């Protein structure tokens, strides 16, 4: 029986693990055992590195931090705004940044360096007007006599146009210790990001989320944007008033957008209630830009009315191509196209589209005149959109709630988490005179707004600028209270 000597174990010279691992990575050479050991060491090193980073980045929950006494350094309260400044919803984000910034400059003009722009927020717009209009309509509430006032600071972060970026923006600002949040821009983002704010007890005011169920995410979630189910049917009514012979309706909606799918259901329900079943329902995607196929398919059915639920860029393109392909009938669009940013996209073809709105520039109240005046001073005499007015309103309600609390000394001796809760309760309790008209909140955070409008787009002779002209105004009863989902 042959004797076999066991293979001698290769001697391993002790060496620093990283160069060995790096060498193995670079060359791919070495015996199997050596490679295995090197890989193990590299994995351990990476694990240790990740652990170190995690430990360094660990933060104490700012909600537990006591608020410094008013008037001392760091006692300011920060309002965070997470809005879409990039991606396909960036057109709304630009309008929102303008509205929030104008409101902040109007309500808190004396805060030194109060406008904190995050690194991703891009160029600021809407600075303070050279000659501010007379202060009318804004309920400026002082702190108790002689007491120092806690200033409100604003921090804007780019929430992008998808759920992940909105969640990142919320997490970032919550960890930085904001008192409340405005945003995100899209309902789809809100369904993903709002539960985070709810769990962390941070008040959220949604400036543009109109899908069903947003305030019902939880106690800390509210909105100043009327539900699309409330206002969307108004434009259908107007179309049928203009042409009572309408029998054939084509519907287009962006199927990968939560808001558009919810809104089209409302439109279709409104149509069905009037005995109209769509002759063609075309599903598109937010990223689509060539609509030749769905349009020609729909036009084969000879529709007399087209109803569109989409966002500004894809919806604007769709309208343009509809008209180019010969459709001459009425077009009703949803809230996604409720921005003047559609004008350069669909250009002269935007003319005549009907839209239900929660804001009218023609509302003759002092606060709306102030808002209009400030807007026109920074925007070459243009007219603000509903989205800008709602963004202003989101800041205004938070400002007024915070000021009322301050007047009662409500923040003194509180931790940030308690201050957030107190601010939310105050927010829900208040009544507000805003550019949207008088508003208040239901106990579940749902908006109660009395007046709504139907507008028609009228394009200028240059074909690239236009305006939403008021067609008529309607009063609606407040929405029914829905039990909250996540309290």
């Amino acid at each position, binding site marked *: 029986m042959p004797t076999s000597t066991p293979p001698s174990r290769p001697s391993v010279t002790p060496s620093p693990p990283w160069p060995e691992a790096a060498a193995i990575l670079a060359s791919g050479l070495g015996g199997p055992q050596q490679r295995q050991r090197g890989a193990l060491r590299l994995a351990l090193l990476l694990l240790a590195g990740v652990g170190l980073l995690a430990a360094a980045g660990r933060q104490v929950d700012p909600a537990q931090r006591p608020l410094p006494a008013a008037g001392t350094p760091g006692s300011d309260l920060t309002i965070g705004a997470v809005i879409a*400044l*990039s*991606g*396909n919803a*960036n*057109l709304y984000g*630009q309008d929102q940044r303008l509205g929030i910034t104008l409101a902040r400059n109007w309500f808190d003009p004396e805060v030194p360096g109060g406008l904190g722009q995050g690194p991703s927020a*891009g*160029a600021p*717009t809407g600075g303070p007007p050279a000659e501010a209009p007379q202060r009318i309509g804004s309920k400026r509430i002082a702190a108790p006599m002689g007491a120092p006032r806690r200033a409100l600071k604003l921090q804007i972060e780019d929430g992008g146009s998808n759920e992940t970026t909105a969640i990142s923006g919320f997490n970032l600002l919550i960890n930085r210790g904001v008192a409340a949040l405005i945003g995100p821009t899209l309902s789809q983002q809100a369904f993903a990001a709002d539960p985070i704010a709810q769990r962390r007890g941070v008040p959220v005011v949604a400036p543009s989320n109109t899908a069903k169920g947003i305030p019902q995410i939880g106690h800390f979630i509210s909105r100043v944007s009327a539900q699309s189910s409330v206002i969307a049917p108004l434009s259908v009514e107007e179309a049928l008033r203009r042409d009572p012979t309408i029998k054939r309706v084509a519907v287009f909606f962006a*199927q990968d957008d939560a808001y558009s799918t919810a809104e089209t259901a409302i439109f279709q329900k409104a149509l069905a209630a009037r005995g109209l079943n769509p002759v*063609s*329902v*075309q*599903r*598109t*995607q937010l*990223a689509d*830009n*060539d*609509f*030749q*196929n*769905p349009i*020609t*398919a*729909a*036009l*084969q*059915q000879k529709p007399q009315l087209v109803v569109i639920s989409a966002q500004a*860029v*894809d919806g*604007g*393109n769709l309208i*343009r*191509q509809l*008209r*180019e*392909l*010969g459709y001459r009938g009425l077009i009703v669009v949803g809230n996604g196209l409720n921005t003047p*940013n559609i004008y*350069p*996209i*669909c*250009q*002269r*073809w935007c003319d005549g589209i009907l839209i239900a709105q929660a804001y009218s520039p023609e509302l003759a109240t002092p606060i709306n005149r102030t808002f209009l005046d400030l807007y026109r001073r920074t925007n070459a005499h243009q007219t603000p959109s509903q989205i800008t007015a709602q963004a202003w309103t989101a800041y205004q309600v938070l400002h007024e709630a915070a000021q009322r609390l301050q007047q009662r000394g409500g923040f003194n001796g509180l931790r940030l988490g308690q201050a957030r809760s107190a601010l939310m309760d105050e927010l829900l309790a208040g009544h507000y005179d805003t550019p949207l008209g008088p508003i208040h909140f239901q106990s579940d955070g749902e908006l109660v707004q009395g007046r709504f409008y139907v507008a028609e787009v009228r394009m200028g002779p240059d*074909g*690239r600028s236009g305006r939403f002209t008021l067609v008529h105004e309607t009063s609606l009863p407040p929405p029914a209270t829905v039990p909250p989902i996540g309290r």
Partner: protein
Amino acid sequence: MTVSLLQILLNGAASGGVYALVALGYTLVFSVLGVINFAQGALFSLGGYLTFLLMGGRIGVNGALPGWGLPAGLAFVPALLLAAAGAGLASLLLERLAFAPLRRRGAEPLLFLITSLGAGLALVNLLQILMGAEGYAFPATALAGLPDSINLWGARIRSIQVVLLAICAVVVVALTLWLERSRQGKALRAVAEDPTTARLLGIDSDAMVRLAFLLSGALAGLGGGLVGVSVSLAGPYFGIGYGLKGLAVLVLGGLGSVPGAIAGGLLMGLAEALVPAEASGWRDALAFAILFAVLVLRPSGLLGRPLREKV
């Protein structure tokens, strides 16, 4: 409820022509280098933005230079050609920066994929910084004098789609003739066939690679400009979607096959157009299902040659 056959053919040809243009760009680079240039979609976007600026468009508020634009705009065709040339030069620059160093080192094909992906993302991000993320629409007067759409025996097509289809057809025919008949086209095909033999025959294969990149960039730029005028620029990433479709067409038609890229583009466009209205949400899924089916039945693509490994 039926859409006429002519309408389906027109719809399919209009989108298929653009897919073919993008796929041809991939094909040129693949045939000489054996790698896929993932930056093709970014060059497509670049072509769209260059056309917009050359026609007198101005940078939006989120761009690096808000409101900036050329003092005077060019007409559509010269702007489109210049934009294609600009995208071609950008492609050449990408080749010098991202491909040539790897080629000199004889790197693995996988590294070319990664480097082209990185170069494409860098280019798109650069566009986002310079132009902002907002969408841009070309002026309605871009094709002044033409009607909005044309009615052909009951089928309707937008005039810009006809222009787009005509330009695509001219470019595809010109490129095919150039590859077949011209000295440089033959040299390019020789390098694609066998670089070593081509070099022994005195063909400068490096120059041919550069030429392939220049042409593929120009094709992407041309496609971007045409699509931009047709449907507006939806943001710096708008070319990426077309790039992915072009990639699918490249595989469908057969890697490295010029006729395959054209046939694949038209087939993909037609497949999308054939999806009935009721299933319009499944348009992309169906198109890619066809790609999958073709690859299962014929792995080398419609007109690709089966690869035989020499042992």
